[in-house]
């Protein structure tokens, strides 16, 4: 499988997915 970080847009999409995942974890932890 190709490393998504080899592609600029793969990197951006990974960053957006990571943001969403971390947001959900923090929102859950804060009870929001």
């Amino acid at each position, binding site marked *: 499988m190709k*490393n998504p*970080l*080899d592609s*600029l847009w793969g*990197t*951006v999409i*990974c*960053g*957006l997915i*990571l*943001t969403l995942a*971390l*947001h959900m974890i*923090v*929102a859950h*932890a*804060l009870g*929001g």
Partner: protein
Amino acid sequence: MDWVPAISRWIHLLAGVMWIGLLYYFNFVNVAAAKAAAADGTAAGISKHVMPRALFWFRWAAVVTWLAGAALLGSNFGAAFLLQKSHMAIGLGAWLGTIMLFNVWVLIWPNQKKILGIVPATDEAKNKARRVAFLASRTNTMFSIPLLYFMAAGAHSALYFG
């Protein structure tokens, strides 16, 4: 006016713009430009005149950004890095920024010194250095996206998590 947090916040933003701005220059512009320049034999100008200067401001802006961020956290430094509920959003941003600072000084800069010929390296070592520096730079670009999200969320928690 409380001068320390006020000036720290200002310096944090100034240095952060320089750090992330240069990171985006490397990733959004220079990777493709260096590849095209290598293909037509004009890459020497970039590696000799642009990269050393860009990397100087890049790595020291990273240090100033982190130090100003630490000063801005002040007595909340521990609460942020321990991800306590009251400081969880800014704490995640602080952790991401700290990992990115590590990547700059431990993975990107030492390998760029080999790539640019600042320190001697074999062709094999240079090829390995290119891959490590590239992936560390791309990792930082990926991390910058949630980093900036949590920087914004840290100051406006109710808006993001209310």
